Structures are given as structure tokens and as C-alpha cells.
């Protein structure tokens, strides 16, 4: 009986409100709805079909001597690749701020590629930006992958800033001069976790009394100056950048693995980027772009030999490289391009002793694109890569890599326009 009462009261509890709603005024949208404040959201999907002359295992073990000493982490495989799905969010926060976020998704990972705010109202031509973002060093680093003219990062950027580029937590200030000619100055203070040239986390090997402390943040400083002039229908854009930061790396050294290495030092990278875009008519243009990067790194290298003995040596690197590319939009929906990559001046000294490294590492690429609309891109790219080596018995052997890829990149949703 008691059970019945409980059931009946439960029934009434649900039915009465529903029944009473029927008699009320017609349903309106919720007075507290915020649906209209949904930020701009977009999803970009990038996939490719790839063919290479060597196996995935061989490819994963290849080195860029003097630059990338251990095998690449997860390069695209032969066959189908889902390179990434990227979700972007953007909205004006209030009259004072705008907010951007980019989430990078792969089948196994979710990571916050960028999340930062910029100011809208600072006076006198200033703007602040803070959060996690791609550094404005050079030209291509701060551009999103889907806006690149080729499927992959230029070799020199890969070598000096790693596969994720210079992507850091920190703050940036820019100032645009109130001049007839465009002039921009920018400065960044970054934590300096950057994988290939920088790094913050220290390392210990107590039994040998080695204690290298972590770098106090911010540990990386970037400055750049940019200007542009128009010569007829050509826009010429020049950016000079410099980055100075502390370097810490620990490659199985602190865990005491024989052959482990660690480095403590500092690195300076200087770069010059030149872009020329010449419109031929309302449809066609030719775009030339080149970046030159120079790096000087020095520090102390700690290494463990096979008997777990520690060797300390002074290491110094002077390296440089560039890429130069030409891209032509020759029809409403077609583009084609050529790119030359070259790493050169590969000089490494250990205790003043010069290492025997190949001094010239080139790669040649060509691409052809069909863009059905601004939201879809189909790209065929061929890389002829002479920069990769294998190491066996302390001997370096060059492996020629031919790589052919067919890439499809699609964007849906509300995606903001790109700058120049």
C-alpha cells in the first residue's frame, strides 16, 4: 500500500508539471538563452596518401646529422594518413579582448595547439598577446599548417625548431609605427620549452654530483621587426627576427642509460624572411618566399659511455640553412610551386675539435594544387630528399628519399580569414 502511494506521488510529481504546461502560454525561447553568443567554430581535416621509396622503419630512423640526432617522431607513414583534425575557436570577448584557441586532434592525442588572447584597445599602436601561441619568429612559424604552400615544414624550421615549430607559453607585445610605410616591432617573452634549440628542464646525476638546475622562466626572448613596401602590383614583406634562450636537454642521461646525453647551454637563432607577392591580374599571382636562419649554440655536453662513465665536454654549434620557394596561382582554382631546402654550414665543435658532419643537406619539392573552393584543397607533392642519413658504426651514410603525397585539406564552419 505504502509502495502504491509512493508510486502515485512520483507519477503526479512528473505529470502535473507537464499537464500544467499545456495550459500556459505558448512556448518561447528560453529567456536566458545564449545561443547567439556561440563563438566562431571550425574544423579542419587533413589527410594524405603517401608513397616512399624506403620502408617506414628505415624512414623513422633517419637523421639530419648535427641537427636531428635521433629518429623523427611519428613521420607520416606509407599509405593513408590522418595527419590531423584541428578545431578552432574564435570570438570577441568584450570590447577589450579577443580570444583564439586551436585544438589539435589526432587519433591518439588531443592537445592544445594554441590558446591566447589579444588586446583590442591599447593606445598608441600597441597590442598585447598572451597564452600559448606560435612564435612570430620568421615567416612560416606563426602560420597554421593548412595555410602553408607545401604539405610539410621547411627543413631549416624542422631542424631548428622541431616538428611542432616554436610553440610556447608566454606573452608578446607588438607596436605598429604610425608611418606611411608599414613598420612593426614585436617582442616575445616565452617560457622556452622549445624542443630543438631550447628547453627549460634541468637534470641530475647525484652519484656523479651533477646538478643542472631548470631555467627560471621566461627563458626565451624573441624580437622581430617587419616592414613592407609595394612596388607596383608587388607587395614586398621583410621580417628580421632574433631568438635568444637557454638550452637544456636530457636524452636518457639522468636515468643513467649507457649512451645517454644531456646538454646545458644557451642558443641564439637569427632569421631573415622575405616574401614577394606579385598579382598579374584579378586571378593570377606569383609569390616568392625565402627564409634564412642562422644558429649559434654553446654549452656543456654530458654523456655516459657504455661503462656508465660521465664525460663532460664543451660543445659549440654554428649552423644555418634556408628555403626558397616560388608558388604561382595560374588559374582560378590551380596553383603550382617549387621549393628548395638547404641546410649548410653545419659546424660542430667538441672541446674545440671539429666533428666531421656533412655540410650541405638539400631537399627539393614540387607541388600542384587544385582548390575547388576556398574551403577545400587537393595537393599533390613530390619531395626529393638528400638531407637524410643513417648511422652505423659511427659512419654516416646518405639515404636518398623520394616521397610522393596526395593531400586533401577541408575546412568547415566559421573560419577566420588569413593575413597576407
Amino acid at each position, binding site marked *: 500500500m505504502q509502495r502504491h502511494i509512493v508510486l502515485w506521488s512520483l507519477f503526479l510529481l512528473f505529470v502535473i508539471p507537464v499537464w500544467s504546461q499545456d495550459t500556459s502560454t505558448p512556448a518561447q525561447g528560453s529567456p536566458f538563452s545564449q545561443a547567439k553568443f556561440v563563438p566562431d567554430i571550425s574544423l579542419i581535416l587533413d589527410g594524405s596518401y603517401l608513397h616512399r621509396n624506403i620502408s617506414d622503419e628505415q624512414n623513422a630512423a633517419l637523421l639530419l646529422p648535427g641537427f636531428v640526432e635521433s629518429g623523427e617522431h611519428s613521420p607520416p607513414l606509407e599509405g593513408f594518413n590522418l595527419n590531423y583534425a584541428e578545431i578552432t575557436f574564435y570570438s570577441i570577448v568584450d570590447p577589450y579582448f579577443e580570444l583564439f584557441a586551436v585544438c589539435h586532434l589526432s587519433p591518439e592525442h588531443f592537445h592544445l595547439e594554441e590558446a591566447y588572447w589579444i588586446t583590442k584597445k*591599447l593606445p598608441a*599602436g600597441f597590442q598585447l598577446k598572451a597564452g600559448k601561441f606560435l612564435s612570430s619568429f620568421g615567416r612560416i612559424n606563426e602560420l597554421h599548417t593548412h595555410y602553408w604552400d607545401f604539405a610539410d615544414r621547411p627543413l631549416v624550421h624542422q631542424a631548428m625548431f622541431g616538428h611542432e615549430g616554436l610553440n610556447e607559453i608566454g606573452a608578446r607585445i607588438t*607596436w*605598429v*609605427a604610425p608611418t606611411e*610605410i*608599414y613598420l612593426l616591432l614585436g617582442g616575445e617573452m616565452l617560457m622556452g620549452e622549445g624542443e630543438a634549440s631550447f628547453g627549460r628542464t634541468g637534470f641530475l646525476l647525484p652519484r656523479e654530483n651533477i646538478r643542472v638546475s631548470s631555467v627560471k622562466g621566461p627563458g626565451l626572448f624573441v624580437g622581430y621587426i617587419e616592414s613592407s613596401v609595394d612596388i607596383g602590383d608587388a607587395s614586398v614583406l621583410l621580417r628580421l627576427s632574433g631568438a635568444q634562450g637557454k638550452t637544456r636537454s636530457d636524452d636518457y642521461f639522468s636515468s643513467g642509460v649507457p649512451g645517454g646525453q644531456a646538454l646545458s647551454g644557451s642558443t641564439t637563432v637569427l632569421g631573415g624572411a622575405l616574401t614577394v*607577392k606579385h598579382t598579374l*591580374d584579378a586571378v593570377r599571382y606569383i609569390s616568392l618566399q625565402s627564409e634564412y636562419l642562422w644558429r649559434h649554440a654553446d654549452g656543456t655536453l654530458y654523456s655516459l659511455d657504455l661503462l656508465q662513465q660521465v664525460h663532460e665536454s664543451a660543445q659549440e654549434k654554428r649552423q644555418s640553412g634556408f628555403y626558397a620557394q616560388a608558388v604561382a596561382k595560374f588559374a582560378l582554382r590551380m596553383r603550382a610551386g617549387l621549393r628548395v631546402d638547404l641546410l649548410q654550414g653545419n659546424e660542430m665543435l667538441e672541446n674545440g675539435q671539429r666533428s666531421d658532419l656533412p655540410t650541405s643537406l638539400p631537399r627539393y619539392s614540387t607541388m600542384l594544387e587544385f582548390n575547388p573552393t576556398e574551403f577545400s584543397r587537393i595537393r599533390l607533392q613530390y619531395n626529393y630528399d638528400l638531407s637524410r642519413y643513417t648511422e652505423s658504426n659511427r659512419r654516416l651514410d646518405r639515404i636518398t628519399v623520394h616521397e610522393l603525397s596526395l593531400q586533401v585539406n577541408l575546412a568547415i564552419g566559421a573560419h577566420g580569414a588569413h*593575413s597576407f
Partner: protein
Amino acid sequence: MRRCLSTILICAAFLPAVASADPLKVVAAYPYIGDLVERIGGSNVRVLSLARGDYNPHVIIPRPSFIAHVRRADLLIISGAQLEIGWMPPLLRQANNPAVQTGEPGFLDLSQYVTLSDVPTSVSRELGDVHPEGNPHFYLDPENILLLARAIKDKLVQLDSRNASYYEDRYREFSELWGKKLVEWTQKMTPLRNTRVVEYHKVFDYFVHRYKLQIAATVEPLPGIPPTSKHIEQLEAVLTTAPARFLLQDVYNPEDASRHLAEKLNMKLVVLPHDVGSVKEATSIFSLFDELVRRISE
């Protein structure tokens, strides 16, 4: 090194102490806007138009030099209705000029002052390059030009009230002159009433509808999508049973398909200007419409 850089930055920021007697610096997205501002603002404004008049207004390359112009602007005028969506937002973001941000008095969106046609009830990119707010080529209706001129006048008065009577006088002068031209254009266009025309892209809708011509078809199967041979065949079939007299082509889209259709179906291919500077005769807002009328009515 760091301290040095910040000192330079701070000093440089205060260098350009702006003299207040300077003319109002106006940056216009397109040349037709620039010409209108010059007509109303006269010697009290200094105008700069960003886009070239002979390029596709949807796909202007945001040249870095534009950033310097927007940086120093007191007033930024866009055409609006998402015509600039592909190139203006990054410029505004990079120019670091709080005066011309959206929602500020120094920002003017002209599309807010006219009624847009073809406002879609639902949008999908399946339908090509659709504009959710309606067809953005509203400035090719000569009657709309008066509304735009008034919006510009009101804005100049708001920002530079000391010269209010100057702007009012020039606006009155302009609207009288424009009124006369409207009569002249109507006279010339009246014989063409109910004439069927084909357009390449829906650029000239407002102009064509103002003078009551009929749009039979577009050469593009969907806005922004170039014609396929299948679409051309369908067009041929439709236009054979119900012929059109003119094929209206803009200056920036490829002409091949239009030329083929015009020849085959005995239509007159007319290349029309869509902005000041799109053809050499269209040097001002007046000659733009003179030329539109002349090319179609002669």
C-alpha cells in the same frame, strides 16, 4: 638588451603627437566608397581606398601596406554584408588602431543603411559562396548611393562636428546632382524594361532590378563556382526556349564561357564595370553609372 628594446618601444610610441588640425584620415575598403567620401568630405578629409577597382571584390589580397593605412585612420569605411570577410578582419587585428575597431565611432559599415536583397532563409556551403546577410553588391543600385552618401555625411559630421555645415552643404550639392543623373539614367534605361539578361555572377542584380530588367540565369552554376560544361549545356537549353538579349560580364571573371554562350545564342556580351576604376572610363561614382548605362543601352 631587453631594457633597451622596451625603452625604444615606449619612446617611439609617443613620438607621433598628432596635430589636431589635420584633415580627417579616412580609409575606404573599395574605390567607390573612397570617391563618395571625397565628394562629401572635400578638403577636410584625406581618403585612401584599399582594394583595386578592377579586382574581384570578394578576394582582395590583404597587402601588409594596408596595415599602415588602417593604423593611421580616423575612420574606416567598409561596404559590408560580408564582402570584406576574406581580407578585412586580419588587417583590423594587425593594425593596432583602437579608433577603427568594429563598434567604435571610427568604423562605418555601409550595408547597414540599405535593404539587402536575396537574403537566404537557410545557408549551406553546398550552395556555393553564399552571403548570409544577402547579396553584397547593393552599391550598384544608383538609388542606394544616396543612402550611402547620407550615411557617410552623418559619420563625418559626427567625427568632425566643427565642419558640420561644410559636409551638409557638399552632401546637398551631391544629392541634387545625383537626382538629376537618376532621371537621365532612368530615361536611357526605360526602353530596356523587361529585357531578359544573363549574368556571369550576381554582381549586377541591384542595377538590373532597379531598371526592371529580368535576370534569366547566371553563367556560374553557384556563386563563386566556375561553370561546368554540363551547366553550360543546361543554360543553352533553357535560353534557346526562352532567349535573353544581353549577357552581363564583370571585368574580373574569366570570359570564355560567356563568350561561347553569347555567340552561340546570339546574345550581346556586355562587359560592365562594378566599381570605380574597374574600367578606364569609370573614374568616379558618376562615370561608373554613366558607363554602366551607356554600355548596356547603346
